[in-house]
């Protein structure tokens, strides 16, 4: 760096002012201009977050929202050069600093997570599935999963109910957002068992192997016939949604 410490400090002071509004003395500045910069920078954050999290923006009180924006703006060193990715940093900031507890809004993290994951799946880079064939045995063959998806676990079903209402339905919710071939994002609600199936199949396990393992580990408690039907139904749903593409080719 060829800046003198003084010039470096001037830039630091200017940024500090913009982020916190704590008054600084920088030679030759005009307060009116400094005010504009603070307003512009904060607005950029506010607008980007309001656009990404419209429900959170509505559910939070004005002062809660302003607190989040001000704290994030003042304290978070934004890592991404791409402002459309900033909502992820905002969501993790809110979670890490426990605003859900501070505001007594237990669903807040889930609300932000749910919206972020929708953006993430909508914008994720195009990815091709492994080579696959269309014909195969749903239980005996290895299934190819389309990579343009994600899977998240929520405590409050903010995808099913209005945020406040979701509070009454606390539980374990698995949600599988995926991108359709015409670029929409759809969500599939998965019972815990299906989320387990999904992860196993994604790792390349066949239905037959999966059933066998379940049988072995559960003793005689499970009804294997019912389990098989349940797994088949799940696989069919995944195929019909396009999340499962086909059967591993070349085997």
């Amino acid at each position, binding site marked *: 760096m060829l800046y003198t410490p003084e010039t470096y400090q001037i830039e630091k002071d200017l940024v500090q002012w913009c982020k916190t509004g704590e008054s600084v003395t920088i030679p030759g500045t005009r307060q009116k201009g400094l005010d504009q910069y603070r307003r512009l920078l904060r607005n950029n954050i506010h607008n980007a977050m309001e656009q990404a999290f419209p429900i959170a923006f509505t559910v939070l009180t004005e002062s809660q929202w302003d607190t989040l924006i001000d704290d994030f703006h003042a304290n978070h060193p934004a890592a991404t050069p*791409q402002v459309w990715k900033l909502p992820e940093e905002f969501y993790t900031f809110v979670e890490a600093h426990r605003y859900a507890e501070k505001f007594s809004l237990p669903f807040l993290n889930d609300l932000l997570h749910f919206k972020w994951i929708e953006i993430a799946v909508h914008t994720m880079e195009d990815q091709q599935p492994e080579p696959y064939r269309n014909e195969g045995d749903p239980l005996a063959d290895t299934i190819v999963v389309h990579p343009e998806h994600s899977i998240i676990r929520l405590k409050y079903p903010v995808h099913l109910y209005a945020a406040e209402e979701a509070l009454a339905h606390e539980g374990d919710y698995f949600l599988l957002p995926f991108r359709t071939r015409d670029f929409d994002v759809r969500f599939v609600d998965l019972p815990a068992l299906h989320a387990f199936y999904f992860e196993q199949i994604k790792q390349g396990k066949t239905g037959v192997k999966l059933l066998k393992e379940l049988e072995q580990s559960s003793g005689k408690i499970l009804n294997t016939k019912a389990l098989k039907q349940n797994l088949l139904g799940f696989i069919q749903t995944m195929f019909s949604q396009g999340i499962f593409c086909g059967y591993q080719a070349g085997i």
Partner: protein
Amino acid sequence: MQPSIQTGIGFRREIADDFFGQTVLQPDFIEMAPENWVGLGGYWGDVFRRVTECYPVILHGLSLSIGSPEEPDWTFLKEVKKMIRKYNVKIYSEHLSFAKLDNAHLYDLLPIPFRKDAIKHIVKRIRQVQDFLEMQLTLENVSYYTPVAAEMRETDFIREIVAESGCGMLLDVNNVYVNAHNHGYNAKEFIDQMPLDKVNYFHMAGHLQVAPDLIIDTHGEPIIDPVYDLFDYTTAKMGKNVPVLLERDFNFPEMEELALEMKKLREITAKNSKHHVIHA
């Protein structure tokens, strides 16, 4: 620059849906911010693919932050370089300002102190970036709302950086107008002192006057007549034709209105290019 690349428009998500299939707006090129498109798949990735198939692209970055104390973000610049190669980009422009500090992004352009040490620092950075990209960097004069610990005039600051670094200049005529108003100098005299032979790209935009002594460079309004006049003055002084961009970032009007603004820019360029030597 091919003679056909003359008048362009900033391509943003907000205009994408109206852009395809229309014939009202016929830009010779589009300008895109790599930050808004790098790594995008799905719907927007498809839009990007389609638009880059139809139009030559000029890149206009937002996050290079040439006036930052820290090293440039080489990882992101690598992506920019790929884009430059893939889409045969002839101009990669950025801002003579800083937009991050100690690697924390600010998503806006802050004014660099006009000081000797800043010139040295920035010249070194420009050279590093040009070496890395293996092409010339083009830097834009930015609008600013307060001077910051200036030790010299803005014109000297810009001239010295351009002369010493070998970078090109993107002359934003509206920014000159805005700054002249906000800081009380004469816009034409400012233009007179710019290294016009190094200018390889123009920006033209609208702005918003929020107080008698304060104009904000919004890119959300139509270009006003005094800025067209300043563009006329500048292009008449230039010895060559360079592309000009209509910058509109929000508050988008009908396509017809944007087309009229582009038409006006074309007319002014055509009028003043009669006397220019054509550089093929």
